[in-house]
């Protein structure tokens, strides 16, 4: 019957259109050499092997890597006339803000990863890094290690002579990730604010970077550093017997470094390949074996691991979710108020 033919023709048409749309035809990049501009708030050394691995598996695509610190990166992205193709940052709140402002472009066919580590098909976490506590083994040779935040707060209160001026943490006004850790702590309860008050009473030293804190702990200028980036610290701890690392057992924050392809990118296909590579088994293995970072997904090929086993505690891991609720802490009023309160606590002038 005629109607049957029309239906069939219509079906074929729809199917064709669907396939074409899905395949993204016509493919624009082809085999022409593509240069990807990657702006990143991650140590160049930590990413070098991963970038090299990507370039090796994608001939014709080169990556130009530019390093920023987190807040510089944000400002540079907003200010740039020519946006980069890819943006990587550990500051999850800032990354969410970029996506929320519509600067990111969706990437298709990305390997399945945990729900908390991705948003909108535009922002993808590719590491799983705990926020840890680094301590000087010699200083704690005859002492009990703290187990929880209230435990730590109590120890600092009870033994001011030992801790006074010898505790370090992020300067939340200077460091984007430090601010994110502090706000996430604050959001999770009063234990954290008690701890901050204790740190203030112990005349805490504030730092811009994890590695500075780790260095000072190794040199015994500090007995412990609170809220350091676990992956960076772990590398140092594994290489230096003076250092120890632990996760507090009440909870340990877990953050993820995330990557996005900008909407302005002229090479979205190649940039998408980079994202897919980061989350592919090969990319995750590279992160695990050849970088200072910790991969997001467990890798079946590598030696069995769970990063919990590399730290001195069994603990409740609390991943920070890549969601717009992070934007709350970027609110100007909220930020101003938090920083004011934090400064007041840390300088021992708690209200």
């Amino acid at each position, binding site marked *: 019957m005629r109607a049957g033919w029309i239906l069939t023709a219509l079906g074929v048409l729809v199917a064709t259109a669907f396939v074409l749309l899905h395949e993204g035809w016509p493919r624009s990049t082809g085999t022409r050499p593509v240069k990807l501009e990657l702006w990143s708030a991650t140590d160049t050394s930590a990413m070098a092997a991963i970038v090299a691995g990507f370039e090796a598996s994608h001939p014709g695509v080169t990556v130009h890597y530019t390093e920023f610190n987190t807040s510089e990166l944000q400002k540079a992205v907003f200010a740039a006339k020519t946006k980069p193709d890819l943006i990587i940052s550990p500051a999850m709140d800032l990354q969410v803000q970029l996506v929320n402002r519509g600067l990111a472009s969706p990437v298709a066919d990305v390997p399945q990863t945990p729900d908390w580590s991705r948003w909108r098909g535009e922002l993808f976490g590719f590491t799983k890094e705990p926020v840890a506590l680094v301590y000087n083994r010699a200083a704690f040779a005859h002492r009990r290690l703290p187990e929880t935040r209230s435990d730590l707060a109590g120890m600092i209160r009870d033994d001011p002579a030992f801790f006074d001026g010898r505790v370090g943490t992020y300067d939340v006004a200077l460091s984007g990730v430090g601010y994110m850790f502090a706000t996430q702590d604050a959001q999770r309860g009063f234990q954290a604010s008690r701890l901050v008050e204790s740190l203030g009473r112990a005349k805490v030293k504030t730092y811009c970077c994890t590695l500075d804190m780790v260095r000072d702990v190794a040199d015994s200028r500090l007995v412990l550093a609170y809220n350091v980036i676990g992956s960076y610290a772990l590398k140092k701890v594994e290489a230096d017997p003076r250092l120890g690392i632990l996760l507090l057992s009440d909870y340990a924050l877990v953050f993820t470094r995330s990557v996005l392809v900008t909407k302005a990118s002229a090479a979205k296909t190649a940039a998408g390949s980079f994202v897919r590579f980061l989350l592919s088994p090969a990319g995750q293995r590279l992160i695990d074996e050849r970088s200072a970072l910790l991969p997001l997904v467990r890798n079946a090929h590598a030696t069995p691991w769970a990063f919990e086993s590399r730290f001195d505690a069994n603990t409740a891991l609390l991943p920070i979710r890549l969601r717009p*609720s992070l934007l709350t802490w970027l*609110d100007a009023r909220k930020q101003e108020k938090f920083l004011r309160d934090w400064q007041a606590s840390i300088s021992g002038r708690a209200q």
Partner: protein
Amino acid sequence: MTATDHAPQIRPYSLRRRLMIASMAVFASLIAILSVGLWTYAGSAADQTYDLLLRGAAIAILERVTVTPEGIDIDLPPSALEILTLDQDDRVFYRIVDEHGTTLTGTPDLPTDGLFTRPLPRQEPVFFDSVYSGERVRFVVNGRTLLSADKPQWIGVQIGQTRIARNAMQWDLILKGLIPLGALALTGVLLARAGIGLAMRPLSGIERDIRSRQPNDLQPLSTAPPREIESLITAINGFMRRLDISRGQAESFIADVAHQMRTSLATLYGHLERADNSGKDGALAVVKARDQAQRTVRLTNQLLSHAMVIHRADKQMFQPVDLAALVCRLLEEIIRDDKAGAIEFAVELPQEGGVPTVDGDPIALREALRNLVDNAVRHGPLDNQITLRVEATDLRSHPAYAISVEDAGPGICDADKPRVTERFYSSGPGGGSGVGLAIVAAVAESHKGAFRLSDRMPCGLCVTITLPRRQAEIVGGGA
């Protein structure tokens, strides 16, 4: 464009297909209407659901806006934005504004939909859609009046959320609604198909009845037809009855003709046999044989004429006929044939009322008149006076025309008058074949007219055919 355009022959249309197309069209339009309704309903349901979330978030934020001695304190709760992004991919935008629309915190460039140019509702939320950051965004503005030491101050929260979750919910609702709707329509179409088949069954019963009949079986159809095709069955039955009558007539006609011809030819043969005898007897027989042959020829002609009239009456080949012209032409023919001799002809036509026109078969009418005039000539004296008259009259209280042929002959006696229209009835010794008046009567009958014989004073016969006047002329005349 369609298959029938290419096909040389026209295929008969199918009632079943027409009914199916009609019922499918009904269901399709029903689904279209319901889909529009479903679309609207799903849209408003999704909006209502997510508007509640939006307002909840606004209220959560408003609760954390307080007045302190230093001014307005805004402590944005993380839960507010969390509510809006529970497992959803929607982007969210917010800002806190004062009554002039000045941003206290948040994204300053959110669209306002002209909200701050008109009086603001104090408590009630205002929802609107607007395009922002390249997407359609649903916004709520909800306000609250803060009481401070000097004067009350209105503070509003504007929150926007992209429509991904709403659209997903709307589509979900539409699909869940459309699936049963589609099933319903499908069932409906199938039931309609079954119903149509059931309704069509009597037709195939009739078909079977007709097909299985013997060719000479013209009994009426016995099936009790449904109302819708009752008239069709009546028409079929009427047709078969007419066919039956006509066949009967034809049979009896053929039998009569056979008998007449045989008799006539036998008589002719008898005369011819006697013509072999010599002398006066033989000469007389030759004369008789010639007369008999003449009669036979005439009989044959009239029988053929009668058959033609009957045949034409069956075919109903009617057209407007001008009676005056017909009469005049006939008269011309008779005079040209020079059969008239000393006979005096007169023609009387109606003086007023235009051309006398009837609906009829001109050939049959001419034949009838011709027979009447022939009869008058044959039966009348040599100095006969024959009048052809056309006049307006009434027939069964409808306007009509009467055509009469009068002669000064011997007439027909009253006893014979009812029988002269029967075939082969001939009165008197000088009678003809007995077919002439039968033809006239048949023509009058086939034209729904009347045939009448009357006496003419002081002597003679008047034969009148009355025919109904042409319909269009009546209307025209009445106007």
